[in-house]
């Protein structure tokens, strides 16, 4: 691991392409199998395991270091993994027989199978054993935040250079290869035959999305992206190809490349055209997508009985096409792959496989509204199985790993607070006769010692038509003052209306009296049952803000 870390460290500072290749070749030459193979996998994005959350890393350090010193250090360094790597206290290991630092192979193979509960202790052990650079690389690797500054293509080029081969040869055989690439290195070093991609149904490393943050939107242009629903199913890759005798073979892979064909014998016959579909595995009953809970009952079964197949009919909702027969489509921009996919699915013409529809939008606000209410934005009765939206750059190729920028996931996991309705304003268009824009507030300590409400946001959707009527009636009957189109609505500890407000994010805002601003707030429920005094306090939002910006 230390050796690999050194390589990453050096690559990060070296600007020259040829010099990078030279560094890589030297590493491949001087490093044994299988370590160099796993390194090649890490560099090409072919490694996959569940990533650790930054919170876990933070917990590890706060258990071991003075929080004040950690704070000063983090402020100075500006990167959590690096701060922890640098200030990790030297382990006081008993005796002189300190374990050797873990190899990259140790780390990769352990992470593959390690349970979530065992991760913190294992990480701590490794951090004790590694040096500063090793710790840094380890933390970047386990949090999935490794930015190496080289492309998969460059890593393959360097591997080719090790054996004086044409990089294109490696590209062609790549889908048939898997870490730690022992056969590849044997061939490159003249010790073995050229690996042949005999597998008619190879797995292709999948492309993953980053969770989008509020601050990301400012730098993104809605016109550059296509959106589709994020289905609450299982990401799969369905691959068909012709074997040596020309017969169609079909395989279904999990997103980590695990062969799960055997669990879904009912899907295999539908994959009757050679190609590779990236899509979501769902259970459909009478054309309606079932929730993940239903799908779950089909998973991890040792025996797939006819009864199970009948009760939980499996379905593939396709959102990308990586290969069409012999043609690799991954280098094409998303819009072109999507066109290929639409033709491919039409040609398949199979009830078990359909297209994941795109969600039309012209602005982020429009998409936010669709995401908040998929039912009326096209998902219809399948809305319960939608867990957000996916954003895909129209011009992006299919890149293995989790490149930052081309794909984003925008989950529907709103934060919820109870706030008090303070002011209401008439809406526009159809709603111009209704009070449909609401300003709401939460409690904070006032200047005179008592509590007072401070406005924290405005919402104008999220409620049903029936709820709109109810709020409108409440506003008209409880107005305390009128200012043009705005009405002040009663908001006392024992009098007023509590709104459950869902929102996506929080930001500091000097423009608001409360100092915070919500992103995409909406009314999720009316809490007629709750007295205003029991609504949330500003401190709750402050804490949330800390936890959101804290790492």
């Amino acid at each position: 691991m230390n050796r690999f870390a050194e390589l990453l460290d050096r690559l990060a500072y070296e600007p020259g392409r040829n010099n990078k290749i030279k560094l890589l070749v030297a590493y491949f030459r001087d490093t044994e199998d299988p370590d160099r193979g796993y390194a090649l996998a890490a560099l090409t994005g072919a490694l996959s395991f569940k990533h650790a959350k930054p919170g876990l890393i933070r917990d590890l350090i706060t258990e071991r270091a003075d929080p004040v010193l950690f704070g000063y250090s983090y402020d100075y360094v500006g990167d959590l993994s690096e701060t922890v790597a640098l200030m990790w206290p030297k382990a006081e290991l008993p005796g002189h027989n300190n374990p050797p630092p873990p190899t990259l192979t140790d780390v990769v193979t352990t992470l593959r199978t390690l349970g979530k509960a065992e991760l913190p202790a294992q990480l701590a052990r490794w951090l004790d054993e590694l040096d500063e650079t090793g710790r840094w690389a380890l933390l970047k690797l386990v949090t999935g935040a490794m930015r190496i500054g080289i492309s998969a293509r460059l890593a393959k080029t360097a591997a080719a250079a090790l054996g004086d081969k044409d990089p294109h040869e490696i590209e062609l055989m790549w889908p048939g290869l898997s870490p730690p690439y022992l056969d590849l290195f044997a061939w490159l070093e003249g010790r073995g035959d050229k690996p042949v991609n005999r597998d008619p149904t190879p797995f292709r490393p999948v492309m993953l999305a980053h969770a989008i943050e509020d601050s990301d939107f400012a730098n993104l242009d809605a016109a550059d992206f296509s959106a589709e629903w994020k289905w609450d199913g299982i990401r799969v890759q369905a691959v068909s190809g012709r074997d040596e005798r020309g017969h169609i073979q079909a395989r279904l892979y999990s997103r980590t490349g695990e062969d799960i064909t055997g669990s879904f014998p009912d899907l295999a016959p539908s994959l009757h055209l050679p190609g590779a579909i990236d899509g979501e595995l769902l259970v459909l009953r009478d054309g309606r997508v079932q929730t993940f809970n239903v799908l779950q009952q089909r998973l991890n079964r040792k025996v797939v009985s006819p009864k199970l197949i009948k009760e939980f009919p499996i379905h593939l909702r396709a959102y990308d096409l990586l290969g069409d027969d012999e043609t690799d489509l991954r280098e094409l921009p998303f819009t072109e792959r999507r066109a290929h996919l639409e033709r491919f699915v039409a040609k398949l013409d199979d009830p078990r496989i359909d297209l994941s529809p795109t969600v039309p939008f012209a602005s982020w606000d429009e998409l936010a509204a669709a995401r908040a209410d998929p039912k009326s934005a096209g998902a219809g009765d399948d809305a319960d199985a939608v867990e957000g939206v996916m954003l895909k750059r129209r011009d992006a190729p299919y890149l293995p790993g989790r490149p930052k920028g081309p794909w984003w996931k925008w989950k529907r996991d709103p934060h919820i607070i109870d706030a008090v309705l303070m002011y209401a304003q008439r809406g526009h268009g159809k709603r111009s006769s209704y009070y449909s824009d609401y300003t709401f507030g939460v409690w904070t300590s006032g200047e005179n010692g008592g509590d007072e409400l401070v406005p924290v946001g405005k919402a104008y959707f999220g409620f049903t038509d029936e709820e709109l009527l109810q709020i409108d009636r409440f506003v008209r009957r409880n107005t305390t003052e009128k200012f043009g189109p705005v009405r002040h609505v009663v908001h006392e500890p024992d009098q007023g209306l509590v709104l459950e407000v869902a929102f996506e994010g929080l930001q500091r805002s000097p423009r608001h009296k409360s100092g915070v601003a919500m992103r995409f707030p909406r009314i999720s429920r009316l809490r007629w049952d709750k007295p205003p005094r029991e609504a949330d306090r500003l401190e709750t939002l402050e804490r949330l803000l800390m936890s959101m910006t804290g790492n």
Partner: protein
Amino acid sequence: MRPQDILMPVPAGLCCKPGGFHIDPVRPVERALITHGHSDHARPGHGAVLATQETLDMMRLRYGDDFAGSTQAIAYGEEIRLGDVTVSFHPAGHVLGSAQIAVTCKDTRIVASGDYKDARDPTCAPFELVPCDVFITEATFGLPVFRHGDAAGEVSKLLASVKLFPERAHLVGAYSLGKAQRVIALLREAGYDAPIYLHGAMEKITYYYQERGIPLGELRPARGVKKADLAGTITLAPPSATSDVWTRRFPDPVTAFASGWMRVRARARQGGVELPLVISDHADWDGLTATIAATGAGEIWVTHGQEDALVHWCKTKGLAARPLDLVGYGDEDEGETAALTGEANGGETTA
């Protein structure tokens, strides 16, 4: 007598009223005691200067013969009475001739340590621990993220790179007083015996080190050497020169920088460094905290650097501690650092 009656910070620097002198004054004063030759500590124009022979020599090299009204050399360990106090100089392990200054008045001893490091350095006398009541410590690397590790390991990184890129020149940015000579000495210890090239600004001070008996092997000026002949060589240069047109005389140079700041990636990237080498002239966090504890001082005054974190640490150990607001330190070779890091606030230092 209270410690602050013996030494107190004034705009000119650390002032000792009962002794009638300033330590490392930043403005011209009547009598100055100088800890070491770095330009933020050793300035010209004082009436009388008391310092080690090496520090006086370096000031002469840098500022010319009339850099002070009069000078007096003091040996490590020698005691001199000045007014109501006794002063003595002790090795600080920072650069050749660097000293901590112990000021004793009645039964109170304050040690102004200047810049110091407790790590091994073949080019200067090792840091000497001086028990005292008040210890004045620098805090250049006063954060627990700064742990400099073994300098020899960093030098082997440099040598591995030279081996990997024999067709390229390696330029090592290093402060011309102390760091450059230490890197050269470490290269020699690692068995590198090829000639090492010097930027013009390094020559005088490096030859002075050799005169003082520090073996640095064969040194050559980089000036006038043909470009092709510099392939596979190592050249020491002031940090500012490594991003200068001066580098065009070298074949596809690898830019290294030897500094404690190289521990933090953002800092190294900011300077456009391709091969950061964590080699520091200052104590790292472990060095600072171990030294503070070992002096036995009950009161710690913290100056230039990350005072807050070190003061906090002292307090958690039950030591009285406060930041000492001295201005004007930590900007040795300010121009060099500013050029390298793009910061011109003078908050940088020899490192």
